Protein backbone atom coordinates (compact mmCIF):
# COMPACT_ATOMS: atom_id res chain seq x y z
CA UNK A 1 0.00 0.00 0.00
CA UNK A 2 3.02 2.24 0.04
CA UNK A 3 2.04 3.53 -3.36
CA UNK A 4 -1.14 5.05 -2.00
CA UNK A 5 0.67 6.91 0.69
CA UNK A 6 2.56 8.86 -1.89
CA UNK A 7 -0.54 10.78 -2.79
CA UNK A 8 0.13 13.01 0.13
CA UNK A 9 3.39 14.10 -1.29
CA UNK A 10 1.94 13.82 -4.77
CA UNK A 11 3.51 12.32 -7.82
CA UNK A 12 3.01 15.02 -10.41
CA UNK A 13 5.43 17.32 -8.70
CA UNK A 14 2.91 19.31 -6.73
CA UNK A 15 4.47 18.66 -3.42
CA UNK A 16 2.24 19.22 -0.43
CA UNK A 17 3.42 22.42 1.21
CA UNK A 18 4.55 22.68 4.77
CA UNK A 19 2.03 21.03 7.05
CA UNK A 20 -0.45 23.34 8.70
CA UNK A 21 0.20 24.21 12.27
CA UNK A 22 3.94 24.18 11.92
CA UNK A 23 4.86 26.94 14.24
CA UNK A 24 7.83 28.94 13.13
CA UNK A 25 9.99 30.88 15.48
CA UNK A 26 8.69 34.41 15.80
CA UNK A 27 11.47 36.39 14.09
CA UNK A 28 11.40 34.02 11.14
CA UNK A 29 7.67 34.41 10.82
CA UNK A 30 7.71 38.19 10.83
CA UNK A 31 10.52 38.26 8.28
CA UNK A 32 8.98 35.69 5.97
CA UNK A 33 6.54 37.97 4.10
CA UNK A 34 9.25 40.54 3.49
CA UNK A 35 11.67 37.88 2.30
CA UNK A 36 9.09 36.39 -0.01
CA UNK A 37 8.24 39.73 -1.55
CA UNK A 38 11.91 40.40 -2.13
CA UNK A 39 12.09 37.34 -4.33
CA UNK A 40 9.00 38.41 -6.26
CA UNK A 41 10.30 41.95 -6.70
CA UNK A 42 13.60 40.61 -8.02
CA UNK A 43 11.76 38.32 -10.40
CA UNK A 44 9.68 41.19 -11.76
CA UNK A 45 12.78 43.38 -12.05
CA UNK A 46 14.57 40.72 -14.06
CA UNK A 47 11.48 40.35 -16.21
CA UNK A 48 11.44 44.10 -16.79
CA UNK A 49 15.14 44.40 -17.56
CA UNK A 50 15.82 41.40 -19.75
CA UNK A 51 13.71 42.62 -22.71
CA UNK A 52 14.59 46.27 -22.10
CA UNK A 53 18.30 45.51 -22.26
CA UNK A 54 17.63 43.35 -25.33
CA UNK A 55 18.80 40.14 -23.71
CA UNK A 56 15.58 38.63 -25.00
CA UNK A 57 13.33 39.63 -27.85
CA UNK A 58 10.68 42.00 -26.47
CA UNK A 59 8.23 40.66 -29.08
CA UNK A 60 8.12 37.34 -27.30
CA UNK A 61 8.74 38.48 -23.77
CA UNK A 62 7.54 42.05 -23.36
CA UNK A 63 8.74 43.90 -20.26
CA UNK A 64 6.61 43.42 -17.18
CA UNK A 65 5.38 47.02 -17.29
CA UNK A 66 3.89 46.43 -20.75
CA UNK A 67 2.15 43.33 -19.46
CA UNK A 68 0.85 45.29 -16.47
CA UNK A 69 -0.58 47.91 -18.78
CA UNK A 70 -2.20 45.24 -20.95
CA UNK A 71 -3.60 43.62 -17.81
CA UNK A 72 -5.03 46.93 -16.67
CA UNK A 73 -6.66 47.52 -20.06
CA UNK A 74 -8.20 44.07 -19.96
CA UNK A 75 -9.46 44.78 -16.48
CA UNK A 76 -10.99 48.12 -17.47
CA UNK A 77 -12.69 46.76 -20.54
CA UNK A 78 -14.32 44.08 -18.39
CA UNK A 79 -12.81 41.35 -20.53
CA UNK A 80 -10.66 40.05 -17.73
CA UNK A 81 -13.59 39.76 -15.35
CA UNK A 82 -15.56 37.88 -17.97
CA UNK A 83 -12.78 35.38 -18.63
CA UNK A 84 -11.97 34.97 -14.98
CA UNK A 85 -15.59 34.34 -14.16
CA UNK A 86 -15.96 31.74 -16.90
CA UNK A 87 -12.84 29.98 -15.62
CA UNK A 88 -13.81 30.12 -11.99
CA UNK A 89 -17.25 28.71 -12.66
CA UNK A 90 -15.76 25.72 -14.46
CA UNK A 91 -13.02 25.18 -11.91
CA UNK A 92 -15.27 25.44 -8.92
CA UNK A 93 -17.99 23.31 -10.47
CA UNK A 94 -15.56 20.48 -11.24
CA UNK A 95 -13.79 20.87 -7.93
CA UNK A 96 -17.01 21.03 -5.93
CA UNK A 97 -18.49 18.03 -7.67
CA UNK A 98 -15.29 16.09 -7.06
CA UNK A 99 -15.55 16.82 -3.34
CA UNK A 100 -19.16 15.73 -3.24
CA UNK A 101 -18.44 12.53 -5.13
CA UNK A 102 -15.00 11.51 -3.93
CA UNK A 103 -15.20 11.99 -0.17
CA UNK A 104 -18.19 9.68 0.47
CA UNK A 105 -16.85 7.20 -2.06
CA UNK A 106 -13.42 7.24 -0.46
CA UNK A 107 -14.87 6.78 3.02
CA UNK A 108 -16.85 3.76 1.93
CA UNK A 109 -14.00 2.19 -0.01
CA UNK A 110 -11.54 2.78 2.82
CA UNK A 111 -13.88 1.41 5.43
CA UNK A 112 -14.59 -1.83 3.61
CA UNK A 113 -11.08 -3.12 3.41
CA UNK A 114 -11.83 -5.92 0.93
CA UNK A 115 -13.35 -3.37 -1.43
CA UNK A 116 -10.23 -1.27 -1.14
CA UNK A 117 -7.98 -4.24 -1.92
CA UNK A 118 -10.19 -5.17 -4.85
CA UNK A 119 -10.25 -1.69 -6.36
CA UNK A 120 -6.67 -0.75 -5.63
CA UNK A 121 -5.15 -1.83 -8.98
CA UNK A 122 -7.82 0.04 -10.92
CA UNK A 123 -7.44 3.12 -8.77
CA UNK A 124 -3.69 3.01 -9.27
CA UNK A 125 -4.13 2.74 -13.00
CA UNK A 126 -6.45 5.71 -13.23
CA UNK A 127 -4.38 7.77 -10.86
CA UNK A 128 -1.36 7.33 -13.05
CA UNK A 129 -3.21 8.20 -16.21
CA UNK A 130 -2.67 11.91 -16.78
CA UNK A 131 -6.03 13.62 -16.91
CA UNK A 132 -4.99 15.68 -19.91
CA UNK A 133 -4.25 12.55 -21.91
CA UNK A 134 -7.94 11.82 -21.61
CA UNK A 135 -9.05 15.26 -22.73
CA UNK A 136 -9.63 14.16 -26.33
CA UNK A 137 -11.76 11.29 -25.04
CA UNK A 138 -13.89 13.66 -23.01
CA UNK A 139 -14.28 15.95 -25.99
CA UNK A 140 -15.22 13.02 -28.21
CA UNK A 141 -17.87 11.74 -25.86
CA UNK A 142 -19.17 14.96 -24.30
CA UNK A 143 -18.52 17.46 -27.07
CA UNK A 144 -16.80 20.80 -26.87
CA UNK A 145 -19.21 22.46 -24.44
CA UNK A 146 -19.13 23.10 -20.75
CA UNK A 147 -19.94 19.49 -19.88
CA UNK A 148 -16.67 18.12 -21.16
CA UNK A 149 -14.68 20.92 -19.53
CA UNK A 150 -16.26 20.52 -16.14
CA UNK A 151 -16.06 16.73 -16.47
CA UNK A 152 -12.34 16.72 -17.11
CA UNK A 153 -11.78 18.96 -14.09
CA UNK A 154 -14.06 16.76 -12.02
CA UNK A 155 -12.09 13.76 -13.20
CA UNK A 156 -8.71 15.29 -12.38
CA UNK A 157 -9.87 16.50 -8.96
CA UNK A 158 -11.47 13.22 -7.99
CA UNK A 159 -8.28 11.17 -7.73
CA UNK A 160 -6.33 13.07 -5.14
CA UNK A 161 -9.41 13.42 -2.94
CA UNK A 162 -10.47 9.82 -3.39
CA UNK A 163 -7.05 8.31 -2.80
CA UNK A 164 -6.22 10.50 0.15
CA UNK A 165 -9.60 9.80 1.73
CA UNK A 166 -9.17 6.04 1.28
CA UNK A 167 -5.69 6.27 2.69
CA UNK A 168 -6.85 8.42 5.58
CA UNK A 169 -9.51 5.92 6.56
CA UNK A 170 -7.18 2.97 6.19
CA UNK A 171 -4.41 4.47 8.27
CA UNK A 172 -6.48 5.47 11.29
CA UNK A 173 -4.46 4.44 14.33
CA UNK A 174 -5.75 0.96 15.28
CA UNK A 175 -5.18 1.82 18.92
CA UNK A 176 -7.77 4.59 18.68
CA UNK A 177 -10.24 2.15 17.19
CA UNK A 178 -9.47 -0.30 19.98
CA UNK A 179 -9.85 2.42 22.56
CA UNK A 180 -13.23 3.45 21.16
CA UNK A 181 -14.35 -0.17 20.97
CA UNK A 182 -13.38 -0.66 24.59
CA UNK A 183 -15.91 2.03 25.41
CA UNK A 184 -18.63 0.03 23.74
CA UNK A 185 -18.91 1.83 20.41
CA UNK A 186 -20.63 -0.03 17.60
CA UNK A 187 -19.55 0.10 13.98
CA UNK A 188 -21.66 3.09 13.00
CA UNK A 189 -20.68 5.33 15.88
CA UNK A 190 -17.09 4.19 15.56
CA UNK A 191 -17.14 5.45 12.00
CA UNK A 192 -18.77 8.72 12.92
CA UNK A 193 -16.71 9.47 16.01
CA UNK A 194 -13.32 8.04 15.20
CA UNK A 195 -12.78 7.15 11.55
CA UNK A 196 -14.26 10.34 10.15
CA UNK A 197 -12.52 12.88 12.37
CA UNK A 198 -9.25 10.98 12.18
CA UNK A 199 -9.38 11.13 8.38
CA UNK A 200 -10.03 14.86 8.13
CA UNK A 201 -6.39 15.90 7.68
CA UNK A 202 -5.82 13.36 4.92
CA UNK A 203 -9.04 14.42 3.21
CA UNK A 204 -7.92 18.02 3.32
CA UNK A 205 -4.58 17.17 1.82
CA UNK A 206 -6.52 15.62 -1.04
CA UNK A 207 -8.75 18.65 -1.36
CA UNK A 208 -5.80 20.97 -1.52
CA UNK A 209 -4.11 18.92 -4.23
CA UNK A 210 -7.40 18.82 -6.10
CA UNK A 211 -7.59 22.61 -5.87
CA UNK A 212 -4.27 22.85 -7.68
CA UNK A 213 -5.36 20.34 -10.31
CA UNK A 214 -8.60 22.20 -10.91
CA UNK A 215 -6.63 25.22 -12.12
CA UNK A 216 -3.98 23.25 -14.02
CA UNK A 217 -6.44 21.19 -16.00
CA UNK A 218 -8.75 24.13 -16.52
CA UNK A 219 -6.29 26.05 -18.66
CA UNK A 220 -5.69 23.12 -20.94
CA UNK A 221 -9.39 22.36 -21.22
CA UNK A 222 -10.10 25.96 -22.17
CA UNK A 223 -7.57 25.91 -24.94
CA UNK A 224 -9.81 23.51 -26.84
CA UNK A 225 -12.96 24.97 -28.32
CA UNK A 226 -13.77 27.54 -25.67
CA UNK A 227 -15.27 30.98 -26.24
CA UNK A 228 -14.29 32.42 -22.87
CA UNK A 229 -12.02 31.71 -19.93
CA UNK A 230 -8.45 32.48 -19.03
CA UNK A 231 -7.14 29.51 -20.97
CA UNK A 232 -9.01 30.79 -23.99
CA UNK A 233 -7.61 34.28 -23.41
CA UNK A 234 -4.07 32.97 -23.32
CA UNK A 235 -4.50 30.79 -26.37
CA UNK A 236 -6.43 33.39 -28.34
CA UNK A 237 -3.98 36.19 -27.56
CA UNK A 238 -1.10 34.07 -28.66
CA UNK A 239 -2.91 33.23 -31.89
CA UNK A 240 -3.52 36.93 -32.56
CA UNK A 241 -0.04 37.88 -31.53
CA UNK A 242 -1.31 40.03 -28.65
CA UNK A 243 1.65 38.88 -26.61
CA UNK A 244 1.22 41.25 -23.61
CA UNK A 245 -2.41 40.07 -23.31
CA UNK A 246 -1.21 36.49 -23.31
CA UNK A 247 1.16 37.18 -20.43
CA UNK A 248 -1.58 39.08 -18.61
CA UNK A 249 -3.70 35.93 -18.82
CA UNK A 250 -0.85 33.77 -17.60
CA UNK A 251 -0.16 36.05 -14.65
CA UNK A 252 -3.84 36.10 -13.75
CA UNK A 253 -4.10 32.34 -13.75
CA UNK A 254 -1.00 31.94 -11.56
CA UNK A 255 -2.26 34.47 -9.06
CA UNK A 256 -5.62 32.76 -9.06
CA UNK A 257 -4.02 29.40 -8.40
CA UNK A 258 -1.92 30.88 -5.65
CA UNK A 259 -4.90 32.49 -3.95
CA UNK A 260 -6.93 29.30 -4.21
CA UNK A 261 -4.14 27.28 -2.65
CA UNK A 262 -3.71 29.84 0.10
CA UNK A 263 -7.42 29.73 0.86
CA UNK A 264 -7.43 25.95 1.06
CA UNK A 265 -4.32 25.95 3.24
CA UNK A 266 -6.03 28.34 5.61
CA UNK A 267 -9.09 26.12 5.69
CA UNK A 268 -6.99 23.02 6.22
CA UNK A 269 -5.22 24.65 9.12
CA UNK A 270 -8.51 25.54 10.73
CA UNK A 271 -9.83 22.00 10.47
CA UNK A 272 -6.70 20.31 11.76
CA UNK A 273 -5.48 22.46 14.60
CA UNK A 274 -5.06 19.30 16.59
CA UNK A 275 -2.61 17.72 14.21
CA UNK A 276 1.03 17.89 15.18
Amino acid at each position, binding site marked *: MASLTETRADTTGIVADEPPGVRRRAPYRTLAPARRSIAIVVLLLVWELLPRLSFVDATFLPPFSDVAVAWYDLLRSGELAEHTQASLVRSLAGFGLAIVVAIPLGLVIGWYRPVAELLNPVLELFRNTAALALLPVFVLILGLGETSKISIILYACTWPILLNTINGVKTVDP*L*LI*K*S*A*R*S*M*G*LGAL*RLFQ*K*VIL*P*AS*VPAIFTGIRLAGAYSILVLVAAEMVGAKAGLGYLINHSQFNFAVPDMYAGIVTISVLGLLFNQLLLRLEGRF*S*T*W*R*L
Partner: protein
Amino acid sequence: MIRIEGVGKVFDVRGESFTALQDIDLEIRTGEFLAVVGPSGCGKSTLLDLLGGLSEPTSGRILLDGVPVTGPGLDRGVVFQQYALFPWRTAVANVEFGLEGKNLSKRERRERARHHLSLVGLSGFEDRYPHELSGGMRQRVAIARSLAFDPDVLLMDEPYAALDAQTRESLQDELLRIWERTGKTVVFITHGIEEAIYLGERVAVMTSRPGRIKHVVPVSLGRRTEGEVRAAPEFGRYRRELASLLRDEVERARIQELREVASVG
Protein backbone atom coordinates in the same frame (compact mmCIF):
# COMPACT_ATOMS: atom_id res chain seq x y z
CA MET B 1 -16.00 -10.81 40.87
CA ILE B 2 -14.02 -11.84 37.84
CA ARG B 3 -13.41 -15.53 37.22
CA ILE B 4 -10.88 -16.56 34.63
CA GLU B 5 -11.41 -20.25 33.97
CA GLY B 6 -8.89 -22.28 32.00
CA VAL B 7 -8.37 -19.44 29.58
CA GLY B 8 -6.00 -19.89 26.64
CA LYS B 9 -5.30 -17.72 23.65
CA VAL B 10 -3.77 -19.00 20.44
CA PHE B 11 -2.91 -16.55 17.68
CA ASP B 12 -2.68 -17.48 14.08
CA VAL B 13 0.56 -16.01 12.79
CA ARG B 14 0.80 -16.52 9.05
CA GLY B 15 -0.67 -19.99 9.18
CA GLU B 16 1.20 -21.13 12.26
CA SER B 17 -0.51 -21.22 15.59
CA PHE B 18 1.15 -19.33 18.36
CA THR B 19 0.14 -19.92 21.96
CA ALA B 20 0.22 -16.68 23.92
CA LEU B 21 -1.75 -17.77 26.98
CA GLN B 22 -2.36 -21.21 28.43
CA ASP B 23 -4.58 -22.48 31.23
CA ILE B 24 -5.02 -19.25 33.08
CA ASP B 25 -7.06 -19.70 36.23
CA LEU B 26 -7.57 -16.69 38.40
CA GLU B 27 -10.21 -15.14 40.59
CA ILE B 28 -10.34 -11.45 41.23
CA ARG B 29 -12.59 -10.27 44.04
CA THR B 30 -14.90 -7.32 43.56
CA GLY B 31 -13.10 -4.26 44.81
CA GLU B 32 -9.71 -5.94 44.76
CA PHE B 33 -6.55 -4.29 43.50
CA LEU B 34 -4.62 -6.94 41.58
CA ALA B 35 -1.20 -6.21 40.16
CA VAL B 36 0.16 -8.42 37.38
CA VAL B 37 3.84 -8.79 36.58
CA GLY B 38 5.59 -10.97 34.07
CA PRO B 39 8.40 -10.98 31.51
CA SER B 40 7.96 -8.99 28.33
CA GLY B 41 5.92 -10.86 25.74
CA CYS B 42 4.38 -13.30 28.22
CA GLY B 43 0.84 -12.30 27.33
CA LYS B 44 -0.13 -9.64 29.87
CA SER B 45 -1.68 -7.31 27.31
CA THR B 46 -3.36 -10.28 25.68
CA LEU B 47 -4.95 -11.17 28.99
CA LEU B 48 -6.13 -7.63 29.49
CA ASP B 49 -7.67 -7.57 26.00
CA LEU B 50 -9.58 -10.71 26.91
CA LEU B 51 -10.83 -9.14 30.13
CA GLY B 52 -11.84 -6.04 28.20
CA GLY B 53 -13.75 -8.13 25.69
CA LEU B 54 -11.58 -6.78 22.89
CA SER B 55 -10.70 -10.30 21.78
CA GLU B 56 -12.02 -13.74 22.54
CA PRO B 57 -10.25 -16.58 24.32
CA THR B 58 -9.61 -19.66 22.20
CA SER B 59 -10.30 -21.88 25.19
CA GLY B 60 -11.85 -21.43 28.59
CA ARG B 61 -14.03 -18.53 29.59
CA ILE B 62 -14.12 -15.35 31.59
CA LEU B 63 -17.02 -14.64 33.91
CA LEU B 64 -17.85 -11.19 35.15
CA ASP B 65 -20.20 -11.50 38.13
CA GLY B 66 -21.18 -14.87 36.78
CA VAL B 67 -21.89 -13.68 33.24
CA PRO B 68 -19.51 -14.66 30.41
CA VAL B 69 -17.68 -11.75 28.80
CA THR B 70 -18.69 -11.55 25.15
CA GLY B 71 -17.53 -8.08 24.19
CA PRO B 72 -16.45 -4.68 25.43
CA GLY B 73 -18.71 -2.59 27.61
CA LEU B 74 -18.84 0.45 29.83
CA ASP B 75 -18.77 -1.79 32.91
CA ARG B 76 -15.04 -2.12 32.26
CA GLY B 77 -12.65 0.74 31.56
CA VAL B 78 -9.36 0.10 29.80
CA VAL B 79 -6.35 2.38 30.20
CA PHE B 80 -3.94 1.58 27.39
CA GLN B 81 -0.22 1.87 27.73
CA GLN B 82 0.01 4.39 24.86
CA TYR B 83 -2.74 6.66 26.25
CA ALA B 84 -4.93 6.26 23.13
CA LEU B 85 -6.43 9.73 23.40
CA PHE B 86 -8.30 11.14 20.44
CA PRO B 87 -5.99 13.86 19.15
CA TRP B 88 -8.81 15.93 17.63
CA ARG B 89 -10.58 16.23 20.95
CA THR B 90 -9.58 18.48 23.81
CA ALA B 91 -8.86 16.94 27.19
CA VAL B 92 -12.39 17.49 28.44
CA ALA B 93 -13.90 16.21 25.19
CA ASN B 94 -11.75 13.10 25.45
CA VAL B 95 -13.08 12.44 28.92
CA GLU B 96 -16.60 12.98 27.60
CA PHE B 97 -16.13 10.32 24.94
CA GLY B 98 -17.19 7.41 27.09
CA LEU B 99 -20.06 9.43 28.54
CA GLU B 100 -21.61 9.96 25.13
CA GLY B 101 -22.85 6.39 25.25
CA LYS B 102 -24.78 7.16 28.40
CA ASN B 103 -28.07 8.96 28.76
CA LEU B 104 -26.73 12.27 29.96
CA SER B 105 -27.45 15.82 28.93
CA LYS B 106 -24.65 17.84 27.37
CA ARG B 107 -24.29 19.87 30.55
CA GLU B 108 -24.13 16.84 32.81
CA ARG B 109 -21.51 15.28 30.55
CA ARG B 110 -19.32 18.34 30.60
CA GLU B 111 -19.65 18.69 34.34
CA ARG B 112 -18.74 15.10 34.98
CA ALA B 113 -15.78 15.31 32.64
CA ARG B 114 -14.51 18.43 34.37
CA HIS B 115 -14.95 16.82 37.73
CA HIS B 116 -12.88 13.82 36.73
CA LEU B 117 -10.17 15.97 35.22
CA SER B 118 -9.90 17.84 38.50
CA LEU B 119 -9.76 14.46 40.25
CA VAL B 120 -6.50 13.69 38.43
CA GLY B 121 -5.22 17.21 39.01
CA LEU B 122 -5.87 18.63 35.57
CA SER B 123 -8.20 21.53 36.31
CA GLY B 124 -7.32 24.36 33.98
CA PHE B 125 -6.18 22.03 31.19
CA GLU B 126 -9.68 21.14 29.98
CA ASP B 127 -9.34 22.84 26.63
CA ARG B 128 -5.88 21.60 25.72
CA TYR B 129 -5.44 19.17 22.88
CA PRO B 130 -3.44 16.03 23.65
CA HIS B 131 -0.41 17.31 21.76
CA GLU B 132 -0.40 20.32 24.05
CA LEU B 133 -0.11 18.12 27.14
CA SER B 134 2.87 16.33 28.63
CA GLY B 135 3.04 12.54 28.61
CA GLY B 136 2.04 12.33 32.25
CA MET B 137 -0.88 14.69 31.68
CA ARG B 138 -2.07 12.62 28.74
CA GLN B 139 -1.95 9.52 30.87
CA ARG B 140 -3.98 11.28 33.50
CA VAL B 141 -6.56 12.31 30.91
CA ALA B 142 -6.78 8.67 29.85
CA ILE B 143 -7.29 7.64 33.45
CA ALA B 144 -9.92 10.35 33.96
CA ARG B 145 -11.66 9.14 30.82
CA SER B 146 -11.87 5.61 32.17
CA LEU B 147 -13.02 6.78 35.56
CA ALA B 148 -15.65 9.17 34.20
CA PHE B 149 -18.01 6.57 32.85
CA ASP B 150 -17.77 4.86 36.20
CA PRO B 151 -16.83 1.29 35.26
CA ASP B 152 -16.89 -1.35 37.95
CA VAL B 153 -13.59 -2.69 36.73
CA LEU B 154 -10.47 -0.73 35.73
CA LEU B 155 -8.06 -2.56 33.44
CA MET B 156 -4.73 -0.77 33.28
CA ASP B 157 -1.88 -1.83 31.00
CA GLU B 158 1.45 -0.50 32.22
CA PRO B 159 -0.09 2.92 32.49
CA TYR B 160 2.91 4.54 34.14
CA ALA B 161 5.71 2.87 32.23
CA ALA B 162 6.62 5.97 30.22
CA LEU B 163 6.68 8.40 33.14
CA ASP B 164 9.46 9.75 35.28
CA ALA B 165 9.69 8.50 38.85
CA GLN B 166 8.20 11.63 40.40
CA THR B 167 5.12 11.74 38.21
CA ARG B 168 4.68 8.02 38.55
CA GLU B 169 4.68 8.14 42.34
CA SER B 170 2.16 10.92 42.49
CA LEU B 171 -0.09 9.12 40.02
CA GLN B 172 0.21 5.92 42.00
CA ASP B 173 -0.99 7.73 45.10
CA GLU B 174 -3.82 9.34 43.16
CA LEU B 175 -4.88 5.96 41.86
CA LEU B 176 -4.86 4.45 45.34
CA ARG B 177 -6.95 7.31 46.67
CA ILE B 178 -9.48 6.91 43.90
CA TRP B 179 -9.55 3.17 44.35
CA GLU B 180 -10.09 3.43 48.10
CA ARG B 181 -12.86 5.93 47.63
CA THR B 182 -14.73 4.22 44.81
CA GLY B 183 -14.15 0.56 45.64
CA LYS B 184 -13.55 -0.36 42.02
CA THR B 185 -11.90 -3.58 41.00
CA VAL B 186 -8.49 -2.80 39.49
CA VAL B 187 -6.28 -5.03 37.36
CA PHE B 188 -2.96 -3.26 37.01
CA ILE B 189 -0.27 -4.58 34.71
CA THR B 190 3.26 -3.39 35.33
CA HIS B 191 6.90 -4.16 34.74
CA GLY B 192 7.85 -2.65 38.05
CA ILE B 193 8.07 -5.00 41.00
CA GLU B 194 8.00 -2.13 43.49
CA GLU B 195 5.02 -0.60 41.78
CA ALA B 196 3.21 -3.94 41.97
CA ILE B 197 3.94 -4.33 45.68
CA TYR B 198 3.06 -0.74 46.45
CA LEU B 199 -0.27 -0.85 44.61
CA GLY B 200 -1.48 -4.43 44.66
CA GLU B 201 -3.33 -6.28 47.38
CA ARG B 202 -2.13 -9.31 45.53
CA VAL B 203 0.56 -9.61 42.89
CA ALA B 204 0.13 -12.23 40.17
CA VAL B 205 3.38 -13.38 38.59
CA MET B 206 3.12 -14.77 35.08
CA THR B 207 5.43 -17.29 33.45
CA SER B 208 7.25 -16.64 30.21
CA ARG B 209 5.39 -17.57 27.07
CA PRO B 210 3.02 -19.33 26.89
CA GLY B 211 1.79 -17.17 29.72
CA ARG B 212 0.42 -18.84 32.84
CA ILE B 213 -0.07 -17.68 36.36
CA LYS B 214 3.06 -18.83 38.14
CA HIS B 215 2.27 -17.57 41.59
CA VAL B 216 0.02 -15.11 43.35
CA VAL B 217 1.63 -13.26 46.23
CA PRO B 218 -0.67 -11.59 48.76
CA VAL B 219 0.74 -8.30 49.97
CA SER B 220 -0.07 -6.78 53.33
CA LEU B 221 1.71 -3.58 54.18
CA GLY B 222 -0.75 -1.91 56.52
CA ARG B 223 -1.88 1.55 55.54
CA ARG B 224 -0.64 1.56 52.04
CA THR B 225 -1.11 5.15 50.92
CA GLU B 226 1.71 6.35 53.12
CA GLY B 227 5.03 7.20 51.57
CA GLU B 228 7.10 5.37 54.17
CA VAL B 229 5.76 2.02 52.99
CA ARG B 230 8.58 1.72 50.50
CA ALA B 231 11.14 1.87 53.26
CA ALA B 232 9.46 -0.77 55.44
CA PRO B 233 11.37 -4.05 55.91
CA GLU B 234 8.41 -6.13 54.62
CA PHE B 235 8.60 -4.15 51.41
CA GLY B 236 12.11 -5.39 50.83
CA ARG B 237 11.06 -8.94 51.64
CA TYR B 238 8.26 -8.86 49.05
CA ARG B 239 10.60 -7.35 46.54
CA ARG B 240 13.14 -10.12 46.97
CA GLU B 241 10.45 -12.78 46.76
CA LEU B 242 8.93 -11.37 43.58
CA ALA B 243 12.31 -10.67 42.04
CA SER B 244 13.39 -14.28 42.43
CA LEU B 245 10.07 -15.51 41.04
CA LEU B 246 10.49 -13.24 38.04
CA ARG B 247 14.17 -13.75 37.44
CA ASP B 248 13.81 -17.34 36.25
CA GLU B 249 10.97 -16.37 33.93
CA VAL B 250 12.73 -13.42 32.44
CA GLU B 251 15.76 -15.60 31.82
CA ARG B 252 13.64 -18.29 30.21
CA ALA B 253 11.88 -15.71 28.05
CA ARG B 254 15.23 -14.34 26.89
CA ILE B 255 16.56 -17.75 25.91
CA GLN B 256 13.29 -18.55 24.20
CA GLU B 257 13.49 -15.37 22.15
CA LEU B 258 17.09 -16.01 21.18
CA ARG B 259 16.21 -19.50 20.08
CA GLU B 260 13.29 -18.25 18.01
CA VAL B 261 15.36 -15.60 16.34
CA ALA B 262 18.01 -18.20 15.56
CA SER B 263 15.51 -20.63 14.09
CA VAL B 264 13.94 -17.90 11.93
CA GLY B 265 17.30 -16.57 10.77
